[in-house]
């Protein structure tokens, strides 16, 4: 084994460093994702939570290099997949790893399947793109995949069209397509949001099964803290394009640090407890064009905001072992001497 290959095996599966993704609105560039860094290891599930508009999906599209051309672009930062910087890859190289080594499940199973092709055709397309298979082999593999994701009568469903299936079934088809080439990394963008709870339970169980079998790394984007608690190892809380808190799932739920995380947890009704009044967060996420450039972006909605919150930008730093937070309430988040100004 050569030296480069050895280092490759040790590198984390996905490493995002200081990612900045901007969208141009009326000729000006605005950062939708602003300086995001994290890693995903093999066999781990990293959850990304936050309200709509906080940049979760843009971040995953940046990793997949699927940003809308001409509008969105990565301005800064590195995306290392399996130890390799993939931003320099051209379209052809990218197509080789996309779908094969890294795959994505989208939120809307209704809109992300092509209505005019059969289920089988769409799965076989993925297989043909990446492997040399005969038609018959591809067909057999598709049927296998469909039964692996728990679709009954797979041999028959393979010839049906997306509209003939229910929402849960379509999401299973999406998963079957995503795992067709046994990817190392799976990005699941709200995979269960459009589904009912009992179906959601089935899908989450299924993802967990596949993950342990293939030692796959998963990035799970969701706004449902319950889903995070049950399926993630590590959690990243995002607000307005920035990471505000990053830790393992247990300390996030037992001792959340950032006021935003705390409020978000207080605002969901719980099955186990009776709460008279839910916590609320006043206002809404600022729009891209009105994002404060200096200071904490949550300051105008934060009940614990101090005067300096609008002047000093809090840094995401480790506050306790493995628990990073970006909030001026914590000494660690204050900028280091000399960096100020």
């Amino acid at each position: 084994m050569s030296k480069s290959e050895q280092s490759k095996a040790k590198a984390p599966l996905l490493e995002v460093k200081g990612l900045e993704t901007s969208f141009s609105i009326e000729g000006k560039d605005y950062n939708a994702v602003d300086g995001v860094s994290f890693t995903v290891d093999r066999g781990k599930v990293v959850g990304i939570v936050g309200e709509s508009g906080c940049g979760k999906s843009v971040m995953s599209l940046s990793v997949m290099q699927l940003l809308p051309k001409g509008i969105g672009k990565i301005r800064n930062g590195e995306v290392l997949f399996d130890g390799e910087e993939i931003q320099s890859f051209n379209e052809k190289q990218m197509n080789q790893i996309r779908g094969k080594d890294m795959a994505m499940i989208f939120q809307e199973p209704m809109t992300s399947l092509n209505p005019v092709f059969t289920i089988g055709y769409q799965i076989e397309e993925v297989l043909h793109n990446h492997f040399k298979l005969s038609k018959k082999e591809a067909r057999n593999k598709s049927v296998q995949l469909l039964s692996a994701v728990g679709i009954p009568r797979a041999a028959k469903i393979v010839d049906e069209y997306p509209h003939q299936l229910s929402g849960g079934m379509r999401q299973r088809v999406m998963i079957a397509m995503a795992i067709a080439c046994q990817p190392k990394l799976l990005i699941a963008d709200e995979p269960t949001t459009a589904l009912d709870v009992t179906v959601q339970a089935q899908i989450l169980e299924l993802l967990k099964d596949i993950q342990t079998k293939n030692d796959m790394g998963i990035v799970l984007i969701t706004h449902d803290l319950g889903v995070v608690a049950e399926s993630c190892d590590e959690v990243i809380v995002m607000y307005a394009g920035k990471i505000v808190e990053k830790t393992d799932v247990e300390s996030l739920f037992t001792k959340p640090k950032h006021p935003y995380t705390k409020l978000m947890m207080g605002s969901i009704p719980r099955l186990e407890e009776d709460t008279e009044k839910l916590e609320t967060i006043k206002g809404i996420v600022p729009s891209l064009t009105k994002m404060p450039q200096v200071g904490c972006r949550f300051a105008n909605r934060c009940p614990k905001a101090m005067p300096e919150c609008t002047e000093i930008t809090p840094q995401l730093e480790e506050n306790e072992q493995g628990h990073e937070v970006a909030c001026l309430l914590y000494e660690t988040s204050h900028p280091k001497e000399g960096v100020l100004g």
Partner: protein
Amino acid sequence: MSITENKSTKTQNLLEVKDLKMHFPVKGGFFRRTIGNVKAVDGVTFDIKKGETLGLVGESGCGKSTTGRSILRLLNPSAGSVIFDDQDITNVNGKKLRDIRKDIQMVFQDPYASLNPMQMVGNIVSEPIKNYYKNKKEEEMKEEVMELLNKVGLPEDAYYKYAHEFSGGQRQRIGIARALALRPKLIIADEPVSALDVSVQSQVLNLLNELQDEFDLTYLFIAHDLSVVKHMSDRIGVMYLGNVVEVADKHSIYKDPLHPYTQALISAVPDASNFGQKRERIVLQGDVPSPENPPSGCPFHTRCPKAMDKCSSIKPQLKEVKPGQHVACILYD
């Protein structure tokens, strides 16, 4: 007709729904004959006391919205009866229906689609008042609307704005103000928060609770999210494939669910409260059957982990198994 007529028989129930059925015909063939029925609601029974919130919960396609719409008579039920404030409103029409609708209002799911984009918010909220009180003075009405906007937590200048100028949560507040305009007795809220972000969702839920106290409202709260329904309701009805399978107060539903479907539904909700304690999860197999061709006997028997042979032949009726807890399952016969 005033409601004081039958005072002797007056009960505490504001709404009684008895064996309500709503079947939609399926047309087909050359002559567009009826070739089948989608049994969206197939024999639903429940009641709501004055000042109470009854939650209706179930998966998509279980008929909870159709039930809400049939009560408001936006749909004409195929069978059964709806008794509102001691009046049978199942077959009333014309002026009587108009009078009743003043007392029952609805808050819709999609705050983006349920507000007219061409109308000022002031007009949207005052329209129900204009409709029922034709002689009301313009200024009086405006004052009333301003007060309503204030009550739901919107700024006064909202009156002159259009719906697109507001965020989802604020739009839902407009929808609530419109529903309140006629001071109804019953509000049917059909998934009022499912389109909203969690932080905004909690604002709207808190608002609904405050308004209930202030205006003495009774709610029929329809949602698919069990935690939300439990937070809002006093009692909960669980629906499956057009049937109510269990009705009980919210604590019994959560702590001691009796129907196998309720048990599975509750175990499926991912919960962040008891972190680290792994709960026993009942994962149901398969999909909800089509309401066009529902299974014989118990509608849940095809997916029920506790199904017995006779489940496919006997349709269980809703029975009081424990005080206040009604269950439709032959396990408890």
